């Protein structure tokens, strides 16, 4: 069992601890992560997907993803068109490749926005506490008591379609949960003895936040953000299905799946292939998140 091995490797002697401290924390985490084969598989998959998304234009030009040919309508996968063709006779492979750009962009951008906004707000209210904490948390209660999908739909309906508005809507629905999580982990850390000690020693709020609290909360942030990417890709797909996706003819995985829905029985590849893409990306991000959590777990370190 891997966990047992890790435990047996835990530093036991004073010399070990000395070595351990010299080794930077990130290297140590990377070393642990490398041992987690499933997480590494996730990392490889996600790197491959990101690479394909970035290199999409080199592999097949964007114009191919838009080129219609009614003769090839609903064509099954073939040597010429590996993934077959869609309801307009457009090459599905090209659409999947170029679609990955938007899907990943939405996934990463919203996660990053949530991380920034939610992380800062959560750390602030968690540490400062008092009236500010009460006020912010009650305001967030309002947001989180509205069902996510409905809220996102209303926001997109009010602001109009487009990638930016979709990102805003998805981020807004995710921020309250993120704030709560960061806040509680900050509260946890703030109660630790060493923080109390430095507070008693007269350290400033900013100093404690930046030197002690945030570095300790960073693990939780990374893990949560990684997991968020997966769920955001899915949320974007769901919004697409509900008719709130990005504008055609720009391909996006969720949009490809919902376009394929009407052909589920006549040309199932139109829904299965992009569906598999979503699955693979969210699988990769999820296992990577799991692996990172394990690697970052302080209980495994000492």
């Amino acid at each position, binding site marked *: 069992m891997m966990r047992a091995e890790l435990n047996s490797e835990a530093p036991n002697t004073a010399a070990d601890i000395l070595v351990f401290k010299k080794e930077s924390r990130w290297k140590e985490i990377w070393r642990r992560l490398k041992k987690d084969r499933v997480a590494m598989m996730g990392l490889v998959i996600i790197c491959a997907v990101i690479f394909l998304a970035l290199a999409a234009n080199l592999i097949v030009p964007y114009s191919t993803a838009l080129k219609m040919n009614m003769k090839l309508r609903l064509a099954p996968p073939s040597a010429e068109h590996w993934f077959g063709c869609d309801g307009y006779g457009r090459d599905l492979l090209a659409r999947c490749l170029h679609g990955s750009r938007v899907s990943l962009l939405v996934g990463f951008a919203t996660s990053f926005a949530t991380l920034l906004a939610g992380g800062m707000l959560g750390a602030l209210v968690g540490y400062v506490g008092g009236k500010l904490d009460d006020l912010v948390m009650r305001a967030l209660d309002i947001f989180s008591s509205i069902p996510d999908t409905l809220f996102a739909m209303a926001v997109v309906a009010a602001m109009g379609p487009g990638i930016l508005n979709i990102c805003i809507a998805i981020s807004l629905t995710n921020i309250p949960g993120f704030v709560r999580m960061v806040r509680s982990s900050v509260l946890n850390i703030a109660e630790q003895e060493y923080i109390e000690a430095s507070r008693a020693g007269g350290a400033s709020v900013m100093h404690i936040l930046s030197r002690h609290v945030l570095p300790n909360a960073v693990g939780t942030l990374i893990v949560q953000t990684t997991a968020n990417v997966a769920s955001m890709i899915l949320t974007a797909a769901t919004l697409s299905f509900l008719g709130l996706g990005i504008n055609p003819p720009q391909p996006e995985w969720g949009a490809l799946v919902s376009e394929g829905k009407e052909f589920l029985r*006549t040309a199932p590849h139109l829904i299965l292939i992009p569906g598999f893409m979503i699955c693979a990306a969210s699988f990769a991000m999820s296992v990577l998140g799991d692996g990172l959590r394990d690697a970052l777990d302080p209980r495994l370190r000492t």
Partner: protein
Amino acid sequence: MKRFFERAALLSAAVVIFAMCGRGFPAAGADVRTLNLSTLAPLTTVDPHNTTNLQDITFLKQVFEPLVFQNEATGDYELRIAEGYSVAPDGLAYTFNIRKGVKFHNGRDLKASDVVFSLKRAAENPKVRNYLVTVADVSAPDEYTVVVKLKQPNAAFLNNQNMVFIVNRAEVEEQGEEFGTKLTLAGTGPYFLTSLKHDVEWTCDAFPAYYRGEAPIKKLHYVPITDASAGLIAFESGELDWYIAPIANWDALSSNPKYKTELVPANHISFICVNYLKKPLDDDNLRKAIAYAIDKDAMNIAVFSGHAVNADFLIGAQNTGAPTTGIVYDYDLQKAKEYLAKSAYPKGTHIGSINCSAGGNYEKMAVVLQANLAEIGLTCDINRLESATNLEYARTQKFDLLATGGEVVGDFDAWRLYCDTRAVGAYYVKYEGGKFDYKKMDKLWDDGISVADTAKRKEIYTELNNMIMDTATMLPVFHRPTPFVWTTDLNIPRNYSIFPQVYEWSWK
């Protein structure tokens, strides 16, 4: 901990039992076979004067009846609650002789006063007021005569009556504000409501005292199914006896001997609006280039698997006054390029965006249109909008191009709303105050309904159609197909393009 789980288990069991209480199997085993039908949306109301929703009307037509009924297939007027009518020579008064012995489902006799009440009630509701907009006064000189006076002659008046239903005054007044939200027996149609849950199901029985004779099929059961794929599966598993299938599955269905199928072109037109008030679309040659670049065949294949009927005119030939000759834009890349060369704009011009409502046939039209325009070197974006937003932008001319469509029932005059500059707010393309001779257009609309002779009307509408087509601002694309499927033990003499008439159906 253990106690907690025990309590939780008890609680959940109680909730499940509670939730399932009263949800037995639907009553079955009666000796008359129930006809199972569906609508694409829950019933919004059973008040026929408070809806123009196609799904509502499709059902309400089985329960409520108008004075006269226009047969969708033949275009002829059939008498319903009126047993005869006459038109004054100046066309300003219609006298209806009300059929004697017509009973409402609640057992009351239908009198002229019910008809007067119904027409006046409909004229007050903004939803259906449109059909009675030319009416000046309605009166009942005796118990079985109704006189409708018009402000101006209106050749489409009878056609409009098709959508104005007669209800029982006493019952509507008894139910008051609640009329429409609960079970009602205020209709005279071949079927009466026996149960009503707007969102779940509603049932009807054949009305034994119906004046044309009791309907052959005795029981109807309706469910709303919003998802077309789910509806088709429901039909195939025998939960529905008749269904308008998704076109993507048509080939498999029509070749299946287990089902009967019929493909009927709908009395519906899909069209593209071009906003000539915006640059660069104000260029006449550019708009004509667009008109010739539209590949109707490709659109037909992408949207309806090629089963739609390409349209040359704004309205199908089966409708009264519909033009059959005149200016037509057929896909012609050569001409499109010529017109583009004649225009003030070069290849590569960005002409704005195509608005469409999200996730439907119009979105597909927009996608093909964008590709068509790219072929002659014009670029544009697509703006897929919530249908409400789309409508609002269309009304307020906040669009460059618009892929849309609509049902047109019976008469070329139905198109007036999209063009008549006096119908403020109704039109998508605003001719009023623009560079085209909109005053002449308005006059032709008025002329069109002021004469009764159909041939003369057709002549007027042909001229009008040519004027509109010459502006290249409203470009007809196709009439969409309606793919009907039904079980082989059901006899259906004819499927109508919009409203089914279950009264004509029977079991084998």
